């Protein structure tokens, strides 16, 4: 863990130095040196523009992702428990899993208009299916002997579900949530760029079209940082819920 962190730091620092050197020697508007990006970032931060847009984006992200997690896990659990529901839905789930989500954005505009509802719907759609599939897989992979053991000790269906199926499927569910988080961030930016220019996505479009590359890169770096932080948050939750599994993985 420690040596991994050290290598992470070395990696980031050397990339930053290379970037700075490249930016200064090329002296091009296309690759602004990191120091200029840094000062653009500070400028955006102080003006409050970055934070207010970021807040708007994160609001969309949180709403869409929350819905995707709740509904994704519920649908996944239902599909895993009831074979009829699984066969009724798996066709669509699998199709949507591999389909490019961006293609559905125009439909969502027609359905939900150009407001925040549409953006939430995009985030939801990006994250939902991967959570469903992982939850379903998790439920189906529960060791049958655990269920048999519980039944043998007198467990009722409800207890089997709560005390066996759910905890046993939790690592897979959390893997789905983790993947869903990544997709949700993609959905957020996509929605803001394709739908209505708002939030972080609007800033990207605005700075990109006006060749304000230092500010553009500042925003992109912000997105990367946000993506990393949200992933880390999911990992922390995952660790709390399925620490027993991670311990196995480390061994």
């Amino acid at each position: 863990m420690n040596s991994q962190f050290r290598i992470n730091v070395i990696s980031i620092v050397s990339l930053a130095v290379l970037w700075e050197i490249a930016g200064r020697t090329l002296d091009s508007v296309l690759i602004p040196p990191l120091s200029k990006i840094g000062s653009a970032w500070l400028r955006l931060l102080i003006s409050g523009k970055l934070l207010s847009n970021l807040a708007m984006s994160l609001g969309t992200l949180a709403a869409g992702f929350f819905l995707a997690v709740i509904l994704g896990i519920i649908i996944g659990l239902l599909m895993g428990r009831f074979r009829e529901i699984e066969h009724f839905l798996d066709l669509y789930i699998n199709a949507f899993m591999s389909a490019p989500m961006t293609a559905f954005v125009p439909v969502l505009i027609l359905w939900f208009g150009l407001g925040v509802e549409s953006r939430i719907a995009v985030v939801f759609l990006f994250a939902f299916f991967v959570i469903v599939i992982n939850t379903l897989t998790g439920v189906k992979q529960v060791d049958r002997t655990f269920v048999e053991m519980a039944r043998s000790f007198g467990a009722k269906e409800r207890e089997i579900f709560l005390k066996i199926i759910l905890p046993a499927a939790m690592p897979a569910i959390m893997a789905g949530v983790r993947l869903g988080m990544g997709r949700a961030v993609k959905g957020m930016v996509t929605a803001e760029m394709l739908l209505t220019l708002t939030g972080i996505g609007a800033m990207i479009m605005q700075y990109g079209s006006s060749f304000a590359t230092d500010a553009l890169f500042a925003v992109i770096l912000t997105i990367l940082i946000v993506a990393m932080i949200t992933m880390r948050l999911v990992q922390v939750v995952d660790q709390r819920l399925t620490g027993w599994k991670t311990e196995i993985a480390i061994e």
Partner: protein
Amino acid sequence: MVEIEGISKSFQKTVKDSTTEIRALTEVSLSVRQNEFISIIGPSGCGKTTLLKIIDGLIPHDSGQILINGKRVSGPGPDRAVVFQTFALLPWRTVLANVEFSLELRRVTKEERTAIARDYLKRVGLEEFEHHYPHELSGGMQQRAGLARALAVNPLILLMDEPFGSVDAQTRQLLQEELLQLWQREQKTVIFITHSMDEAVYLSDRVVVMTPRPGRVAEILDVPLRRPRIADDVRRDPKFVDLTNYIWDSLKKAMENGH
């Protein structure tokens, strides 16, 4: 105490479009006495695990009946507890929480079940490992936890499905000795599935030899060895050697007839 009367069981097996019926057990009858240690031995696929599950009430049978103290078995009940071959310990629970699991399902209060679970962990020698997770323990220790979980509900009958089948030979011998000591102290009726003749003879009062599929009772043999049995002495006893040889012949005969 346990009356197994004419139990038959078939499974439907579907391969592609053709469904074939597999007879797992035919007319199995057996009477188990209170506090008896009885082993059921037979070639793999003879339906001994199926029989154990039927006694536990986990799977239905086609004909016949199981009576426990005169009452007909229709599902799992508090008078029986199973020790599983693969231990079936929940990996997300500590050893203590695993033992508490069986008590949780019986609606025992939190304080009470922790006290009971601790007590049984002590009896199987795991008191210092209560906060460990199953994967941190050796196979032998995991099965001790499985045994503690079964004993914790204080069943009349312990159903053991090849419980020492997946631990190494030395651990196996140790566990056998510990099981005998526990059995003598706890006063349980044990129905023990195994495919080891040596294990069956060393542990049991009687050994039931089953035929290959469809499983029937080929022979029921008394074990003429006095208790308490000291493992090293027992295994050198001519009566032990004779009986294991006899069971081996009986199994061979049963397998030849079956084919």
